[in-house]
């Protein structure tokens, strides 16, 4: 059973502003039956078309989806469109006194419905919908995911799933989600090994190829300078090696590793490999 705050329970059991608005100024619709939750938000503006005078919703979903919808309508009534645009999913979660982390996507859905309704009033298309669909199970685009990573400071694929649902179905897009996290966070983590396509090789094949390149090309070159190299481990894309002999004490050993060893391995084995020196 989820640990819902009293406020979530209250807004779920006694939802405010359920229903439709006749001749609304803006309507925002997000989610789908397949996804398990959906929200349709109706906005009515004042005569100057500046301020939201009424908001109503229809929601299909769990308790936190209904509570988030109810909270959203309460929060935006009386706001100008400019003010409403600044409402984030975190604001909705805060209003409800927090949501379980697995349910954060419900607050994200609220915010997206609000944006969709405002865009609908203004007659513009939301840029978010135009991104590349990353998660096919739940139809989430890269732009939506990137924004969630940025705004909610997400660090792991699991967090991205909690907030956007992306990756919560078949899980095929998890590698892509990690890439997006890396992209947003400017982390220079290696790209994961693609699970399909011509470059795919088993770990054993990879290790054998690495050994082969080291033996055939790298070692003879290093030996000329009185050095040597030993393969310690291969962990995903990380190739852990130990430099021996003259190389071990050479000030330029890092350059040798990156400029020479890594380059050779990338050319001949896998372009995503990263060579590191054993810390042991």
């Amino acid at each position, binding site marked *: 059973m*989820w640990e819902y705050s009293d406020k979530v329970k209250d807004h*779920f*059991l006694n*939802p405010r502003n*359920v229903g*439709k608005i006749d001749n609304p100024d803006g309507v925002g*619709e997000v989610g789908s*039956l*397949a996804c*398990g*939750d*959906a*929200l*349709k938000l109706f906005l009515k503006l004042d005569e100057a078309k500046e301020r939201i005078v009424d908001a109503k919703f*229809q*929601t*299909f*979903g*769990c*308790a936190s*989806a*209904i509570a988030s919808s109810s909270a959203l309508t309460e929060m935006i009534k009386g706001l100008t469109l400019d003010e409403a645009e600044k409402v984030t999913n975190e604001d909705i979660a805060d209003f409800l006194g927090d949501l379980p982390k*697995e349910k954060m996507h419900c607050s994200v859905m609220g915010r997206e419905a609000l944006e969709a309704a405002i865009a609908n009033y203004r007659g513009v298309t939301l840029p978010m919908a135009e991104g590349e669909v990353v998660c096919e*199970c*739940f139809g989430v685009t890269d732009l939506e995911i990137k924004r969630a990573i940025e705004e909610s400071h997400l660090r792991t694929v699991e967090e991205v*799933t909690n907030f956007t*649902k992306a990756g*919560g*179905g078949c899980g095929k897009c998890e590698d892509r989600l990690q890439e997006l996290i890396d992209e947003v966070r400017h982390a220079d983590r290696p790209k994961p090994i693609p699970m399909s396509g011509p470059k795919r090789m088993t770990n054993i094949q990879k290790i054998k190829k690495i050994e082969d390149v080291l033996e055939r090309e790298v070692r003879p070159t290093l030996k000329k300078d009185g050095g040597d190299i030993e393969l310690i481990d291969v962990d995903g894309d990380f190739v852990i090696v130990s430099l021996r002999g003259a190389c071990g004490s050479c000030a330029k050993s890092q350059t040798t590793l990156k400029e020479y060893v890594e380059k050779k391995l990338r050319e001949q084995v896998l372009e995503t490999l990263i060579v590191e020196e054993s810390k042991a």
Partner: protein
Amino acid sequence: MIKSDDVIYMDNNATTMVAPEVVETMMPYFSELYGNPSSMHTFGGQVGKEVATARQRVAELLCADPSEIIFTSCGTESDSTAILSALQAQSDKRHIVTTRVEHPAVKNLCESLDSLTGHKHRVTQLHVESDGTIDLKRFEDSLQDDTAIVSVMWANNETGVIFPVEEMAEIAKSRGILFHTDAVQAVGKIPIDLSKATGIDFLSLSGHKLHAPKGVGVLYVRKGTPYAPFVIGGHQEHGRRGGTENVTSIIGLGKACELATRHIKKENTTVRALRDKLENGLLKTIPNAILNGHKTQRLPNTANISFEYVEGEAILLHMDRFNICASSGSACTSGSLEPSHVLRAMGVPFTAAHGSIRFSLSVYNNEDEIDFVLEKMPGIIANLREMSPFWHNR
């Protein structure tokens, strides 16, 4: 009459109340007769005798021999033991047949075999029909020369659909293939006769599903079946399952099995009638309500009904206000973001899968409770549908 603080418990496929007679039978073994059945002294030895009686009672419920009963800690342990034992005993066989609708205890185990055994295995997960049943021909075709074991549940926990495991086991036997059945949901609800179902080599059951406590289970292993223990330790259970016996719970399980033997008729008459009343009532009074699973080839206590265009967690939490306990196969209750793997395997459309509610009864339910649920459910569903955009646009 239902009082406001009465709990209406209709989630017996999740767990059951420990029967008062079971509790009573167990009580002396906590602080009076607390001896270890392995001890040499009379004080411990007398407990050993009670464990033997419990074993006898379990065997009677299954029409098996007491020597074929191994006490474990739960249904999951029994499942793991059976499947891994079969693979260990036939290391040259690398194929397993199971279904897409197994309990995670079997499903996830079969998906993790490679890392557990260090060998590559091929797992065939049999498809089910839209009513949750299995096609015997398709099953037969799935068997291969190196099939080590077939593991098929006797009855499905979510829909209650009963599989023809006796026939399937017979087919497997004719091909020299071991057969395991996870009978956690079936034992105590439908008659099981292992003296006749001779193709079944392993059967798992769980105490807490039949009014015994949590933390005790049984693995039935037919005499002569190759076997390797999973929990390795002392000589308990004739060296087939190490670890000091969970004496009190085993004695409780023995009593629960005795009660189950007595109640099996009631399960199939009284409980079935209550279930039918509940099911027919809900389907009649609530529009767009759909029964999931075969109408008759089903456990007498289970009704899995989808209420289209509404979501299961929301339904359950509204039911919770009236102290009505049930389960849902919706995404939000499964701990993942997708609805139940069982309903998806059956091809239940999304309009229905997210709004599925499982009612599972026991001999402790009564007609007042059924009437109460029938009175409350239409309002709950109507209230949520009033809120659902899909209900208005259907």
